[in-house]
């Protein structure tokens, strides 16, 4: 009796040990490329220049074409526009850069098709940007907008330049004043 019990216990222990060992190995092998992702989709590789490519981040952006509309943007205009729209795959690049350099990304080409469709539909760059912002949120822009709180992003550098200019002028004047005080001829 005890022998059988012992045997069963050992078998259970052995089996659980085996599964415990095999599972992580399987998990690693089955993913093929050790995509730097754990089950929660969080980056866990302790190395640089990897990121989690989210191929499902595409959101359709469509608007009916304007009647009798002619495209307002040429090829260069489309590139300039796509340089202001951020690809959502996780690469942190703009749509143009991503679709021309990350060939495994499916998000940027899809966003590119939407841009082309809207351009063909006669919409302006700003209208297209607005529509993308409506669909994805302001994170789809490569730079903050110049309205509301985001105005601060643009004004702070101007203020910094002004402070630096005033401080430089004051300091240089002080040099001259101090030099005069000691009898120098400035």
């Amino acid at each position, binding site marked *: 009796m005890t022998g059988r019990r012992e045997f069963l216990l050992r078998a259970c222990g052995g089996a659980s040990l085996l599964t415990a060992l095999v599972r992580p190995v399987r998990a690693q092998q089955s993913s093929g490329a050790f995509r730097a992702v754990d089950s929660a989709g969080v980056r866990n590789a302790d190395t640089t220049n990897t990121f989690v490519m989210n191929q499902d981040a595409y959101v359709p952006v469509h608007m009916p074409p304007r009647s009798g509309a002619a495209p307002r943007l040429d090829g260069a205009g489309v590139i300039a526009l796509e340089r202001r729209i951020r690809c959502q795959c996780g690469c942190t690049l703009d749509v143009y850069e991503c679709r021309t350099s990350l060939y495994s990304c499916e998000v940027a080409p899809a966003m590119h098709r939407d841009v082309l469709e809207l351009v063909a539909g006669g919409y302006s760059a700003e209208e297209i940007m607005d529509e993308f912002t409506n669909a994805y949120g302001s994170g789809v822009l490569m730079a903050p907008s110049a309205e509301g709180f985001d105005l601060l992003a643009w004004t702070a550098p101007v203020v910094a330049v002004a402070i630096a200019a005033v401080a430089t002028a004051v300091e240089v004047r002080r040099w*001259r004043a101090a*030099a005069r005080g000691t009898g120098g001829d400035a």
Partner: protein
Amino acid sequence: MTLLGELALWLALPMAVWASAASFAGASLRRDELAASGRRALRVAFAALVLAAFALAWALVKRDVSIAYVASHVTGNLPTPFALAALWSGGAGSLLLTAVFLALAGVIASARSTPTGPGHQMRVTGAIAAALSTIVAVVAFSSHPFAREAWLPPDGRGMNPQLQHPAMFVHPLLLLAGGAITVVPFAQGVAASLARTPDTAWLSSVRRWALLAWLTLGAGIALGMRWAYAELGWGGVWRWDPVQNAALLTWLALAAALHASAVSLWHGVLRRWTSALAMAPFVCALFASWTARSDLLPSVHAFARTPDGIWMTAIVAAAAMLVVYLAIRGRSGASRGALEPIAAASRESAAFAGSAMLATIGFVVLWGTLYPLLAEWVSGERVTVGAPYFATVLTPLTALALAAMSAGAALAWRGGSRSDAWWRLLFVFAVAASVAAVLAIAGVRLVGVVVSVSLAAAVLAGAAVELAAMLRRHGVGADGATASMRRVARARAVGAFVAHAGVAVVVIGLAGLPFASQRVATLEPGDALEAADPFGDGWRFVSQGVSLYDAGNQRVAAVALDVWRGQRRVGLMRTSKRQSVDAQGNDVFEPQTEVAVLSSPALDALVALVSLERETATIRVWFRPMTFWIWIGAALVVGGGIVSLLAGARLVPERA
């Protein structure tokens, strides 16, 4: 070996702590033997850290996958040099290596005798050892480079194939070393502020160390730009990634400190500003380390989400507060007497303006990097601050900086003595005006490009005039050309003018970026992609077919293209897709595209394999004008730094 490494790491920590405590105690109690003990402890800490790094490198090379760090960075079939490079491809390893560099800088800085007095030297050693202690504490308590795997994996996870590149042996090391060297100016600023020392002798030492850090970091950044330029998906020469921005910020802060010291070293002004700027770069370097270890800012350069991020947040915040406190409290700039006359229109005021401008540009880079956090905190919505923002904000600032550089070359030191200054000013800005006119006539309509290129030409003209004047002054004497070159190289600020010329050349190279164009085509063997480059020349890229082969740990599919420019054959370009495999032959990581680059002064042509189906290859071709000059300019910047460093032996101010 692993055990030895871990023990060495745990030995380094108390040694660094003791080095700091004994050095500070030695300084305040005026006991030399305590300070000597501190110096010895710092040396032991350095040796221990070298041993720890060696042990980790040994484990990597031996592929000891029982260690978690090894298992997550190498595979059995990874070429051994890259297995060694895995020492700095991960968070724990690179932090350990940072500690090694910090300790080395500390050992050298504490061994050198300076004219600043023993008390200052002891405090410098103490401050460096304190910084070292915190970093070693993070490595020992949080990164755990020697932690074991809970189970023995059949093979490691491997190194990201994009990192398996020769630049991997230089770029990261230069960045880590450059960042670590900033600890010396930091420690000197801290020591001077603590002692409230009124003399400026320490500034010449600060200048040398800042110069060394600046050119090391500059070379590292430039090499990284070149690497990213040829690596697909890294966003070209610069992508305004937080980790890149932080490295740039450190470099800018160092440059600002150098410009400030060019004034404060020679005159009794700007000491406080110089002292604050001497301390700032190390905080920036810590910030750079933080951006790579925190998941608050999305970056492709970031390491894993590790607990190190929280530690680094605390360390960066503490260091920043310390610097702000010391800068406000500092009495090192108190002396106001004994000023020599300096005119407003002088090279000193241009250098100071340059320092202020570099600091402002640094602030803008920091602001743009951190703004997403602020915006998310306030409005709850994540915004991106990317290239369009920085291009808009930094183009006018760069133009201002270039204008100050050209003015600085025209003006005389102290402003007074040179009669030809106004003629020089007229000359450099006439050069700018004519270049602007030529560009406008040539049909360049981008205002930012016209302004920055013409001002860059003015900087070049100013540097040329100044170098010519130096040659005249130190002209070829009876002792021959070599001796006179040596005299010129030692003349004050000659390195600075070479570096300024380099910056101007980099700007000219960057100005070519908006004119890039690209074409894509699907080619059967023998088919040609035909395209015109931005200068109007016709190019033909003729597919020579596809070849498949194994190369070490990679399965390669390559396409060769015969390249013709007009009627002239310019060469064969090969682009490939590479799938990395581990020792069992399993695919690891995403396939990677290897780009071919054909470089010439006017234009680079780049070719990439987009996709492949049997013999049919889809190829993308880029034309990038002027990129060549970015690398020439960067080499000049670094070369100027080296000239300044070598001339620095004579940097004790002479009264002109």
